[in-house]
């Protein structure tokens, strides 16, 4: 009976892992990159450099907004922080005109409150949004889809644990062997050793969009969901514009007071309602990078007089738990060392999914009645593996390349950087379909290697912040980014070589274990 349970769990593990495996691979790659989204954004905006304090930058941003959007109903300001050099502003106009796009009501300012001359790009932020909003899809469909994928992943993890109980009892049995078992070993190593992380990241991932997937916990107690949100996130009642103009009080002292209240923690977010009116109010929220709970404390001020109105923080054990879970997933609280650990764990997760997908074909290749003509399902999996595992990373490299190569004054430049990612990926997919499988692997991995290697070269050729000048200047961010590109290029090249050199065994050929080194 036990044997049978193991087998059904093994089947379940295979199916839940395979069906959305490629989407999960994408989610892991983009999510892992997103841990450094701010650094990636800085690399993709080499013109940006700011020294002013967040308070000065915010005050300058307010001055800019007073000129550009004096009648807006609300202004949102994200001051520069430890990891970002620019101020992001966004406003809600008094009247929403049809055809108004996101770009019309948002701007990126430098620390002196001027529109930056920096290139139009979505930076690392795009990779973060790609992780759960995907692209070319209505956002809500994307979020449902990634939610389903995350639940499949959770079930795959749990069924994997049940199937391989023995590995947990003595995980010292794990072997980095060469040859036949190496795909299974890579999958086991990347899955088992970082299992606490994988479980945590999957469950907390579902929690980040919890009320989208399970709205009935709220519906059971509240006829109107708004009442629930008011109860959990108490907010001052929004007042209407009085029509009497009053200059906005100085923001600088408000920010300092808030930081002082919060024991030195930085302000992450400022919301100004009815600016320039007597009924203006300013609400500051604690930066998510300053504590593990993602939902920060807030402090509100009267906008015209600068008087303190009140403070609030999300209350309650369950809300605090949710806040910590979301904080754990996004890792915004992490310092540099922990952030690298998150990144490494994400790479392990990516390896787990990738090796799992490859393992599926590796296992079944032996059982093919005619290895030269596999059945359709096998061919689809094999081609998708090549296309996604080498194509998506190659696409990201091309996103960085496009950032350097697209003309600065081009229209919709940021969108075209994104299109480049998908065009490259599509090209690799096409290539993977047309080539014989083994060649497809070698070439796909080689393409990825070449593209990553090209990034520091193109960076040096098109900006003043190439690797050598950055080393001279001690610019750690640019140095690390370029070096990481080179390391990734080396890993993909190594994998391509391994596949090229691997001679398949006569009795049951096995895909080479090259990529094992890439992933693990």
């Amino acid at each position: 009976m036990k044997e049978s349970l193991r087998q059904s769990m093994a089947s379940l593990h295979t199916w839940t892992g395979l069906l959305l495996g490629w989407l999960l691979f994408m989610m892991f790659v983009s999510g892992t990159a997103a841990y450094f989204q701010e650094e990636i954004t800085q690399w993709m905006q080499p013109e940006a450099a700011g020294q002013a304090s967040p308070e000065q930058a915010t005050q300058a941003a307010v001055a800019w907004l007073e000129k550009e959007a004096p009648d807006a109903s609300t202004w949102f300001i994200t001051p520069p922080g430890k990891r970002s050099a620019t101020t992001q502003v966004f406003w809600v106009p008094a009247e929403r005109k049809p055809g108004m796009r996101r770009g019309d009501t948002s701007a990126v300012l430098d620390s002196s409150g001027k529109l930056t001359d920096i290139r139009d790009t979505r930076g690392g932020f795009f990779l973060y949004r790609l992780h759960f909003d995907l692209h070319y899809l209505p956002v809500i469909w994307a979020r449902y889809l990634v939610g389903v994928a995350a639940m499949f992943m959770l079930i795959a993890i749990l069924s994997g644990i049940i199937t391989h109980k023995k590995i947990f009892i003595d995980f010292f049995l794990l072997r980095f062997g060469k040859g036949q078992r190496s795909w299974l070993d890579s999958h086991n190593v990347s899955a088992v050793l970082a299992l606490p992380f994988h479980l945590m990241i999957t469950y907390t991932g579902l929690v980040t969009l919890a009320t989208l997937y399970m709205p009935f916990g709220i519906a059971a107690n509240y006829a109107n969901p708004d009442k629930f949100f008011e109860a959990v996130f108490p907010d001052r009642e929004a007042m209407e514009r009085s029509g009497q103009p009053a200059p906005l009080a100085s923001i600088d002292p408000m920010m300092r007071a808030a930081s002082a209240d919060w024991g030195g923690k930085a302000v992450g977010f400022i919301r100004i309602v009815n600016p320039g009116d007597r009924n203006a109010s300013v609400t500051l929220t604690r930066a998510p990078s300053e504590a593990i709970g993602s939902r920060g404390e807030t402090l509100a001020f009267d906008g015209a007089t600068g008087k303190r109105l009140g403070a609030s923080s999300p209350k309650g054990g369950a809300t605090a738990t949710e806040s910590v879970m979301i904080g754990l997933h996004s890792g915004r609280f992490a310092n540099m060392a922990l952030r690298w650990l998150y990144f490494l764990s994400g790479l392990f997760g990516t390896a787990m999914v990738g090796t799992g997908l490859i393992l599926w074909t590796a296992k079944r290749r032996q059982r093919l009645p005619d290895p030269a003509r596999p059945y359709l399902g096998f061919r689809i999996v094999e081609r998708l593996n090549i296309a996604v595992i080498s194509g998506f990373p190659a696409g990201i490299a091309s996103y960085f390349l496009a950032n350097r190569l697209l003309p600065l004054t081009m229209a919709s430049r940021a969108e075209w950087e994104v299109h480049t990612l998908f065009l490259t990926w599509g090209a690799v997919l096409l290539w993977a379909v047309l080539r014989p499988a083994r060649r497809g692997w070698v070439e796909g991995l080689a393409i990825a290697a070449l593209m990553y290697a090209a990034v520091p070269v193109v960076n040096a050729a098109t900006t003043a912040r190439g690797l050598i000048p950055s080393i001279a200047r001690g610019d750690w961010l640019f140095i690390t980014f370029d070096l990481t590109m080179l390391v990734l290029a080396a890993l993909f090249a190594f994998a391509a070589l391994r596949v090229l050199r691997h001679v398949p065994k006569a009795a049951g050929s096995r895909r080479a274990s090259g990529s094992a080194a890439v992933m693990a």
Partner: protein
Amino acid sequence: MAGHTDTKRIGNAWGIAARVLAAVPLNYALTTAITACLARFLPMDPAQASTASTLASFAVFACLALICFSVRSVPRLWGGIVAAILAFGGLAWVSIIAGGRL
């Protein structure tokens, strides 16, 4: 792929289809019913109870899905799930009718 399916426990295509139906839509209905009950009956502030039950719902769904593929008899599985949906769903419904919502 055809030869790979485990036939001992999961069974043939109909069996698999029945289990998938149990593990996805029926499971979601049952998880919803359980979540609603937890939200109504957990001894805490209603906003906190709603939050806590929502947080727990994913674990409930995942475990139920595993059960759907490990129970031997499909008719028993369905019977059990439907009965549970009626029980928990009924409980939540009665509680809402009696106590109202905020």
